[in-house]
């Protein structure tokens, strides 16, 4: 019984201690209750947001890019459906496995995937490859479970149905680059967007781009979409009608064929660019579909520079075409009258040097018309020598040389009109009068672009109207469907007398009828023009050219022909430049003729061959 009472005492002791166990447990549970209050009530909204971020993915819906048409409504660029391969960064579970597996299904360099995934963000989508094939898409779809985070999205891909034609005008599109994203110009755009990277795709990007939409979808832990939460439809970009006449554009490119060169055709009255061809070209479809780094390098290293738009970026000496401006300058300054005869014996001694005429023995007595028609060098050596460099530069600038025409294409070059001031500033040397002699026949420091020359032809054709070449004719707003014609650009009138233009035109017409460009003579339409030979190897006054020896092609001169037609009521102004083809009269003039005839509605009978 003693034991029992001891046990009873001990039991009482133990049971008395239970209160501490009770308090201990209750305190712990109250602590848990407080923790739950903290999580669910105090910070509930925060966790609510985290939960929403967890399960929702925002997808940018690319708008359809505006379409491009020529002036007659011929389609130049549209959008075709294609599969785009994305990786959703939040949903990658094993980066290494992804890098190892993806190349089994898609033709892509693992290094390239790695580069694309190396951006800092852990959220959002990265486009891994554009325009994957149906086979690739099917392979990925069937291995989806092994590739968490990989998403195939059908999207529109830019397509250029004419392939290489008008490639330099149209340009191409591409994903916005890292450096562009840092540029304030693109600050309103998000990464991954397809934007115009060249040509009118670039300059009119703001019209073509449209507005992106957004879809918020709910996904599970593996990134599989469950349902759509909200959709904001994208707004397609505006369709643009260019001033190009695609038939003329095609013809111009076909005429250049395999040669490097450029052809620009303008409507002289309003500056409409009817054709702007540059060869060699490229296929914008190859570039726009997410070009691989390797192909891009190949493009950039191509010594024929297919991406260069020679019509606006090629800077060449104008050669004898410059005599048009020389004629205007000498008549306007009354240095010479149109009728004044100048003897030409084939040489022009200047100081201790002798400048030669292209025609050994000379042209005899020449007036302005004959000087232009036969492209007499001595006549213009003399005129230039009397004028001096600075008046020449002034007139050259009036005709728009030395400055960009302002055509709506990226990276236009301005060419160079040298002057004594320029020489002092840039070369830190005085201007030597001998240099003026070279400038007089369009050589020396003087350089121009083909579009500038087409503009010169326009100015002469319209007796001094200066218009900016324009590419955009009209736009159709996708939202309203209304077609909006662009207003004609402002016109500036040169202070050069009509008589001067009349004299020049007479000379230019004679170039075709009896001068250096008889190959440009058309039986359907009257053409006025001027040939030119842009020297690749600098003009040497005493250079003993070996006429019998044909120089290597890359040292041969460039052939110019600048023209307008019909002479009486001009409708088209053309500049043709073919690189390394020698004389403008033989190489370039027939091309201009064919183009003009086609534009005037006459099918050419004779295939020109280069």
């Amino acid at each position, binding site marked *: 019984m003693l034991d029992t009472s001891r046990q009873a005492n*001990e039991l009482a002791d133990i049971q008395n201690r239970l209160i*501490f*166990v009770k308090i201990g*447990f209750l305190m712990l549970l109250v602590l*848990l209750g407080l923790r739950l209050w903290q999580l669910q009530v105090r910070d*509930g909204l925060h*966790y609510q947001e985290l939960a929403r971020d*967890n399960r929702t993915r925002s997808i940018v819906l690319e708008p359809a890019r505006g379409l491009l048409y020529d002036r007659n409504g011929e389609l130049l660029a549209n959008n075709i459906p294609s599969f785009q391969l994305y990786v959703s960064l939040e949903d990658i579970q094993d980066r290494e496995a992804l890098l190892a597996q993806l190349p089994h299904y898609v033709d892509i360099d693992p290094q390239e995937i790695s580069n694309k995934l190396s951006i800092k963000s852990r959220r959002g989508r990265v486009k891994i490859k554009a325009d994957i094939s149906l086979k690739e898409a099917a392979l990925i779809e069937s291995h989806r479970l092994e590739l968490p985070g990989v998403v195939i999205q059908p999207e529109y891909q830019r397509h250029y149905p004419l392939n290489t034609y008008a490639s330099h005008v149209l340009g191409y599109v591409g994903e916005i680059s890292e450096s562009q994203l840092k540029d304030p110009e693109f600050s309103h755009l998000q990464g991954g967007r397809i934007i115009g990277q060249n040509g009118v795709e670039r300059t009119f990007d703001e019209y073509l781009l449209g507005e992106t939409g957004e879809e918020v979808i709910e996904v599970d*832990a593996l990134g599989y979409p469950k349902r759509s939460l909200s959709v904001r439809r994208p707004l397609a970009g505006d369709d643009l009608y260019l001033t190009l006449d695609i038939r003329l554009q095609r013809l111009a490119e076909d005429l250049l064929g395999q040669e490097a060169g450029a052809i620009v055709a303008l409507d002289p009255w309003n500056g409409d660019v009817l054709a702007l061809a540059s060869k060699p070209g490229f296929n914008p479809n190859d570039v726009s579909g997410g070009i691989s780094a390797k192909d891009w390098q190949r493009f950039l290293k191509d010594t024929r520079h297919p991406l260069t738009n020679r019509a606006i970026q090629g800077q060449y000496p104008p050669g004898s075409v410059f005599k048009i401006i020389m004629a205007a300058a000498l008549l306007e300054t009354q240095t010479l009258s149109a009728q004044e005869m100048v003897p030409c014996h084939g040489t022009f001694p200047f100081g201790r040097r002798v400048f030669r005429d292209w025609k050994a023995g000379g042209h005899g007595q020449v007036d302005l018309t004959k000087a232009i028609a036969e492209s007499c060098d001595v006549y213009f050596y003399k005129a230039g020598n009397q004028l001096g460099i600075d008046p020449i530069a002034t007139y050259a600038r009036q005709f728009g040389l030395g400055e960009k025409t302002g055509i709506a294409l990226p990276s236009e070059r301005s060419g160079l009109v040298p002057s004594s001031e320029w020489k002092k500033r840039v070369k830190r040397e005085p201007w030597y009068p001998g240099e003026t002699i070279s400038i007089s026949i369009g050589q020396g420091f003087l350089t121009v672009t083909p579009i500038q020359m087409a503009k010169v032809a326009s100015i002469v054709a319209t007796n001094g109207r200066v218009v900016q070449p324009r590419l955009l004719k009209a736009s159709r707003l996708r939202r309203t469907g209304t077609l909006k014609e662009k207003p004609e650009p402002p016109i500036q009138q040169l202070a050069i007398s009509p008589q001067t233009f009349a004299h020049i035109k007479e000379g230019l017409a004679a170039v075709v009828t009896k001068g250096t460009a008889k190959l440009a003579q058309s039986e359907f339409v009257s053409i006025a023009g001027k040939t030119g030979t842009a020297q690749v190897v600098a003009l040497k006054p005493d250079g003993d050219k070996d006429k019998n020896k044909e120089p290597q092609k890359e040292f041969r001169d460039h052939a110019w022909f600048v023209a307008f037609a019909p002479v009486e009521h001009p409708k088209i102004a053309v500049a043709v430049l073919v690189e390394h083809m020698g004389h403008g009269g033989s190489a370039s003039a027939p091309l201009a003729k064919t183009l003009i005839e086609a534009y005037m509605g006459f099918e050419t009978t004779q295939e020109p061959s280069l």
Partner: protein
Amino acid sequence: MSLMNDNVNRRGLDTFDWCFLGVIMAIISVGILSIYSVTNPQSTTGFPIYLKQATWMVVGSLAFLVAVGIDYHKLARLSYLLYGIGLILLIIVLIAGKTSRGSQRWIPLGPFAVQPSEFIKIPLLLMLAAYYGATTREGWVRRLIIPGLIVLPGFLLILKQPDLGSSLGFLAIFLVVILTVGMKSKAFGFVILAALMLFPFAWGGVWGSLHEYQQDRILSFVDPNSDPGGKGYHGLQSRIAIGSGQLLGKGLYGGTQTQFKFLPEGHTDFVFAVFAEEWGFIGSIVLLSLYILLFLMGLEIALKAKDIVGTLLAVGVVTMIAFGVVVNIAMTSGLAPVVGIPLPLMSYGGSAMVVNLTALGLLLNVKRRRLSLL
């Protein structure tokens, strides 16, 4: 002893008993509902998990009835034998157990897998009660060292599996029972001193014996926000689930964390997060209150037990369940590292369900035999 048996309350169930059963059934039901919500969309093939759990509830209820029916004193006398069997099972597990996610915890038994680390808790509870209830244990050797040496192999075998959560639960039951029995301050001081001295060695041994994922879990407990996709993922997703439930919850099946599988192990260790996301703070507090009610009733039984065996058995059962509840909810709500302890009565698991209901049966057993001395 026959006198005691004759004095068993045979009047059937009183209000307390009904409340006790009601609370247990309510918690289990909430658990099955949550499991249903988690596994609802994926149970297209095979036997749905929530039905399995309901089946385990039925099996557990039978065990409960058995545990109520047999006098706990008889069971206490069998406890050393049962504990020995449990240790043998643990050794079998170590040798031939089924391995899942790096842990060897299960003995396959036909279509089921039995988890001896759960079952050995029953003999542990009975054994501790029997040891201290048999006679007064004087001195710290008898009070602490001998029972400690008996408990130690079980603890180590479970830790070796490794099952950190269960081994800690094992230790917790032992400690709470010792504290309830009463420690002479000298002896207690010695325990503290020894623990402090042994800590570096124990830490080295324990840490080294942990699997990499367990080490990661403990490390990620330090700063789970630093790596949402990595090691702290479970804990963070669990906290997002609980927190985003806010005051009123997202409703049944409305838990996005659960339904879209951001929350892992939703039907087992993280079942509380599932419940809290769908039923909010209000639901969580109601659930906590149910558990509190259960503990208070358990401690009430301990307080009114007629002998030390009954009291210590009741305290042990309450400790076992309370430890699971506290550590599990602390773990899912980010107060404790993710050590892998199921929520008693709610997490899916047959062994745990049967063991917990058996233990609660023992609790009612103690209560129904207390009137004999009154």
